[in-house]
C-alpha cells in the first residue's frame, strides 16, 4: 500500500519533470535524429552502402541516445540532496529505482521507437525491416536503461573509478545490440527473426529481475 | 475542364496517393498550426484575465 504510494510518487515526479522540461525527452530524440543523419556525410550517399549500415546506425544511435540520458537518473538528485530522501525512505530502494527507470524507459523507448521507421526510410530500408527495428528499439531501450542504471548509480560519487564501471557495464549491452540488429537483418534477408526476438525478450526479463537490486546496492555503495 | 471525369481527377493519372497525400500533409500541417495558434491565444487571454483579477 505504502510501497505503491512511494512508487507512484516517484513516477509522478518523473512525469512532472518531463512535462516541465520537455527537453528531457525531446533532446535525446533530436540527438538520435542528428546522429542518424550524420553518417551518410561520412560514408557516402549510395543507397547500397546506406542499406548496409542503416540498421547498425539506427540501433547504435538509439542505444547512445538512451545511454546519454542515463546521468539524468541520479546525478541531479545527488547534487541537490534529493537522493538522500530516496535512501532514507522506508520502502525498498530497488522498487523506487525500478519505478524511476520505468518512467524513463517509457518516455524514451516510445519516442525513439516511434521515429525509427522514418530513419529506416533515409537508409532506403524496406517497411518490414523498419517495423522490426522499431519493435527492437522499444525492447532494447528499457534493457539498456536497466543495465545502465547500475553504472549510473556507481557513477554518482564517481569515487569508484568512473571509467572502470563504464567499461564493465557497456559490454553487457552488446547482446541487446546483436539480437536487435540481428532480428532486423533477418527480416531484411527474408528469414524468421523469432530466435533473436525470444533472446531479446529473455535478456530484457533478466535485466528486469536483477538490475534494480544491483543498482540499489550500487547506490548504497556510492553514497556510503 | 481538363479532366474527363471526377474519378480521373481523384486518380491523378494513377498517382493520386502521392498527390493527394502531399496536399493532405499540407492540410494537416496548416490545420494543426491554426489549432495551436488558437489554443495559445485562448490560454494567454485566460492567464491575462486571471492576472488582472488579482
Amino acid at each position, binding site marked *: 500500500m505504502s510501497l505503491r504510494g512511494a512508487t507512484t510518487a516517484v513516477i509522478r515526479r518523473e512525469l512532472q519533470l518531463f512535462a516541465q*522540461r*520537455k*527537453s528531457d525527452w*525531446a*533532446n535525446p530524440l*533530436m540527438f538520435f*535524429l*542528428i546522429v542518424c*543523419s550524420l553518417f*551518410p*556525410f561520412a560514408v*557516402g*550517399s*549510395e*543507397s547500397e552502402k*546506406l542499406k548496409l549500415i542503416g540498421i547498425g546506425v539506427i540501433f547504435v544511435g538509439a542505444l547512445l541516445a538512451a545511454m546519454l540520458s542515463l546521468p539524468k537518473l541520479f546525478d541531479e538528485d545527488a547534487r541537490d540532496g534529493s537522493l538522500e530522501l530516496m535512501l532514507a525512505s522506508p520502502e525498498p530502494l530497488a522498487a523506487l529505482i525500478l519505478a524511476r527507470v520505468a518512467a524513463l524507459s517509457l518516455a524514451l523507448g516510445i519516442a525513439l521507437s516511434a521515429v525509427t521507421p522514418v530513419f529506416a*526510410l*533515409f537508409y*532506403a530500408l524496406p517497411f518490414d525491416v523498419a517495423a522490426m527495428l522499431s519493435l527492437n528499439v522499444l525492447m532494447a531501450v528499457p534493457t539498456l536503461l536497466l543495465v545502465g542504471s547500475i553504472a549510473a548509480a556507481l557513477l554518482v560519487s564517481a569515487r569508484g573509478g568512473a571509467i572502470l564501471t563504464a567499461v564493465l557495464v557497456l559490454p553487457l549491452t552488446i547482446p541487446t545490440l546483436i539480437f536487435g540488429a540481428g532480428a532486423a537483418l533477418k527480416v531484411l534477408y527474408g528469414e524468421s527473426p523469432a530466435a533473436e526476438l525470444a533472446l531479446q525478450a529473455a535478456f530484457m526479463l533478466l535485466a528486469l529481475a536483477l538490475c534494480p537490486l544491483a543498482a540499489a546496492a550500487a547506490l548504497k555503495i556510492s553514497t556510503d | *475542364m*481538363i*479532366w474527363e471525369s471526377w474519378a480521373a*481527377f481523384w486518380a*491523378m*493519372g*494513377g*498517382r493520386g496517393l*502521392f*498527390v493527394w*497525400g*502531399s*496536399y493532405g*500533409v*499540407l492540410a494537416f*500541417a*496548416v490545420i494543426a*498550426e*491554426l489549432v*495551436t*495558434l488558437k489554443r*495559445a*491565444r485562448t490560454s*494567454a*487571454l485566460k*492567464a*491575462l484575465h486571471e*492576472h*488582472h483579477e488579482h
Partner: protein
Amino acid sequence: MARTESQSNDKFAGSWFWRYASPAAFFPLAGKLEKLCWALAAVLAAVGLYIGFFVAPTDAQQGEVYRVIFIHVPAAWMTMVIYMAMAFWAATGLVLGTRLSFMMSHALAPTGAIMAVVALVTGSLWGRPTWGTYWVWDARLTSTLILFFLYMGYMALAASFDDKKKGDRASALIALVGAINVPIIYFSVKWWNTLHQGSSVRPGSSSMAATMLTAMMIMTFAFWFYCVAAALHRLRTDIIERERNAAWLRDTLKAASQ
C-alpha cells in the same frame, strides 16, 4: 549595463521604425495586417489551386504527379526565406535591444519549421513515383533537412530558458550563427554530393508550361501571406503573455471586445 529599450527609443525618437518598435503601437497595427494576410492567403490559394488543377495541363514527362509542385516549391522557398527573416530580426534585436525584434524571431520559427516539414514530406512523396525512392541524399534535400534541424535547435534553446529575456538573446545569437553557416553547409553538401556522385536525380531540371508557372507563383504568394499571418498571430499572443502588466493591453483588449 545593458541598453534598455527606453534609452534606444529616445535616441531614435521620431522615426517611424521606433514608433512601431514598441509593442503598444504595434499590437493594433499587427491585428489589422494579420486579418488582411489571412484573407489574401485564402483568396490566392483558391485561385492558385484552381489554375493548378483545372487549367494547367498534364506534364509531358511526369504526368499528373507534378501537381505537387504547387505546394512543394512554395514551402521549400518559404522555409529558407523565413530562416533569413528570423536571423534578420535576431540581429536587429541584438544590435538595437528591441524586445519586439526577438518576438518576431520567435513568432517566425515554428512556421518555418512547419514549412520545412511540408517541403520534406511533399518532396518525398513526389520522389517516390519520379525517382523510385522516398529519399536521396541530394544537396538540396539534405540542406532542407539540416535547416529543419537548425529550426529545432533554435526553438529548443529558446524554450530551455526560464528567463525569457535571456532566452531571447541566447536564441537570437544561435539564429545568427546558423545563418552564417547555412551557405557554408549548402556548399559543402553540394560538394560532398558531387564527390560521391550518389544521386543522379535532383529536382530542378524540367521546363515548365506558362500556366504551371503562373499557378506556382500564385501559390507562392498565398504561402507568403499565410506565413506572415501565422507569425503575426503568434506575435500578438506573445505580446499578450509578456505585457500582462501593461495598462495599454488591458485597454486595447477591452476596446476590441466591445
